[in-house]
């Protein structure tokens, strides 16, 4: 078995402040294999973006990795200096962010942005880099790619811009792509195109993808496995179909019940009472216990088993839900 492209072990991100230390990412472990798409889903404040940014060393001060390890292709990267990390970003890890307009430089032609990235990471002449940029744009489905090199970002539509961003993320052939809400700013019809594109490119090249989103629909369409985050911790991790159809963690179950698409014909949606706790006052024991219909005394005292240590474990819960076959 080939080792995973990305391996995160017991990662903790801490933000110290005057009121104390908050941990927006608390002890999470997961692997992403070659050619696999791991969906990371959660509501706002669950720490999903922070988990992605920690991997690529893009945490804003004072947030920092307090403990845990990040391994990329068998090399530990969480303790590297800023210069070494910069070389890894783009070359080995590509990034796609939510808003395609802000992730492109509005003052540079997209051809210049692509060739700059390519020459930064690969030993190429300007002409070679230009050919490669054209090939990259053609691959993401931009018509008349050679002419569009001279266009500025504002001359593209939203969907086309996100294609450019994907071309930019993939042009140095990274082994891992972190896509943070890549389709949230786009319309449904364009969203379907972008998801299909991301899936095709990663399958063809064997790129591993960490797809961070709040949209369970996108996860269901694109991901192989899904990690459900709640209050900085992994609540459930498993194959996407199993988690959707037979969720084991009560939070994952509540989340599925709250989706209008799964409640066709029902008068009311199932709702989870209350709201996600703030990172400064996460309840002791299981973070979900105050909202959990199955919570017992044990849940309020002992933190549930951590996911990832046991490869068979799916839900971080003392009393996971059983689903009769």
């Amino acid at each position: 078995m080939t080792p995973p492209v990305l391996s995160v072990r017991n990662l903790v991100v801490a933000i110290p402040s005057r009121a104390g230390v908050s941990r927006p990412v608390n002890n999470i472990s997961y692997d992403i294999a070659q050619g696999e798409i791991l969906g990371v889903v959660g509501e706002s404040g669950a720490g999903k973006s922070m988990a992605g940014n920690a991997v690529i060393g893009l945490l804003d001060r004072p947030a920092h990795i307090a403990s845990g390890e990040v391994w990329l292709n068998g090399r530990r990267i969480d303790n590297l200096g800023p210069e070494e990390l910069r070389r890894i970003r783009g070359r080995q890890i590509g990034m796609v962010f939510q808003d395609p307009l802000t992730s492109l430089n509005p003052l540079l032609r997209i051809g210049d942005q692509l060739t700059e990235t390519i020459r930064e990471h690969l030993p190429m002449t300007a002409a070679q880099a230009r050919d490669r940029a054209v090939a990259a744009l053609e691959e993401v489905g931009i018509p008349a790619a050679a002419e569009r090199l001279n266009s500025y970002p504002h001359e593209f539509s939203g969907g086309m811009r996100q294609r450019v961003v994907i071309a930019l993320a993939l042009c140095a052939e990274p082994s891992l792509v972190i896509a943070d809400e890549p389709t949230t700013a786009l319309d449904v019809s364009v969203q379907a195109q972008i998801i299909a594109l991301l899936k095709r490119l990663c399958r063809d090249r064997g790129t591993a993808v960490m797809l961070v989103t709040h949209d369970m629909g996108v996860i269901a369409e694109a991901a192989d496995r899904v990690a459900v985050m709640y209050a900085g911790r992994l609540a459930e991790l498993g194959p996407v179909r199993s988690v959707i159809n037979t969720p084991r963690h009560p939070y994952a179950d509540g989340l599925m019940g709250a989706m209008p698409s799964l409640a066709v014909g029902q008068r009311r949606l199932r709702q989870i009472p209350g709201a996600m706790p703030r990172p400064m006052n996460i309840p002791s024991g299981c973070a979900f216990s105050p909202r959990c219909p199955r919570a017992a005394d044990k849940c309020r005292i002992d933190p549930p088993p951590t996911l990832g240590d046991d490869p068979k474990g799916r839900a971080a819960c003392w009393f996971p839900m059983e689903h009769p076959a």
Partner: protein
Amino acid sequence: MTAFVEVTRLGRSFDVSKPWLNRVIERLPRRRLVAVSDVSFQIEEGAVYALVGESGSGKSTIGRMLAGLMTPSEGAVRVAGSDLHADSGARKTARIQMIFQDPYASLNPRWRVRRIICEPMVVTGGETEGLAERLLEQVGLSAEDADKFPHEFSGGQRQRICIARALAANPRLIICDEPTSALDVSVQAQVLNLMSDLRDELGLTYMFISHDLTVVRHMADRIGVLYLGRLMEEATPAQLFTRPRHPYTQMLLAAAPLIDGRTRDIDLPRGEVPDPISPPPGCAFNPRCPFAVELCRKQRPELRDVDGVRVACHLAEQIGTPPAP
């Protein structure tokens, strides 16, 4: 019997020309953006009418004209029998309120919740004693919250305050413009359930604007599908989701990610929404339509009845519908 809300041949265009000096020097013509064009529909009292569409389809513009916040360029809106824009007293008797998308932007941060909620009643000159407390409890908050400021609440709670404010003046029609798009799924479920309950208790009529097909399917009694400011299809959720008639509706349904536990192979949507300043001649959807014939490029189809569904497509009878998803 006449419907509660009657919208006839509604149209709205915006002047997006450059300043007159530029037009004179650069010899540019005036440019008009047609946001809404020839839209007619009716809403029965106590019903939920939903408008769905992608960005730029004119759904919010229609909502604003229905609320009286914008005057139509063509056509008329009649609410409870009187013309909203011609008759100056009509807006008061119609008792229309609105709920907006962003609960962070639609509450005055310097006002206490009590003042925010009572404002519609103060304007109409009614009794406000105890009003805020009663309404807060009705929307699932507590009476003590009346003395707090908006920043002390989460997104879902703020949207509840917006709903309480909308209820203050005893409305008959509430226009909800993407009321849950800024909320997380579990909070969205809470707000949608609350809206359904209030409709049953108070006999409200909702005009529901959304881009999310799953939410619309859950909430609406009748759905209008908009594309480039034109009504393409209007049907009940059952009709629309089991047998979409218009090729655009078919494309939207195929593109929307479904959490049905199946992997689907779909024909990806072609192209993107065209520029509304220069829409294609004939049917607005013809450049992206897989069935388009010569007639579609020349003549704009009228909205007409086909088996109890209103469709604006020349080929509505011939087009085979794909098997229900």
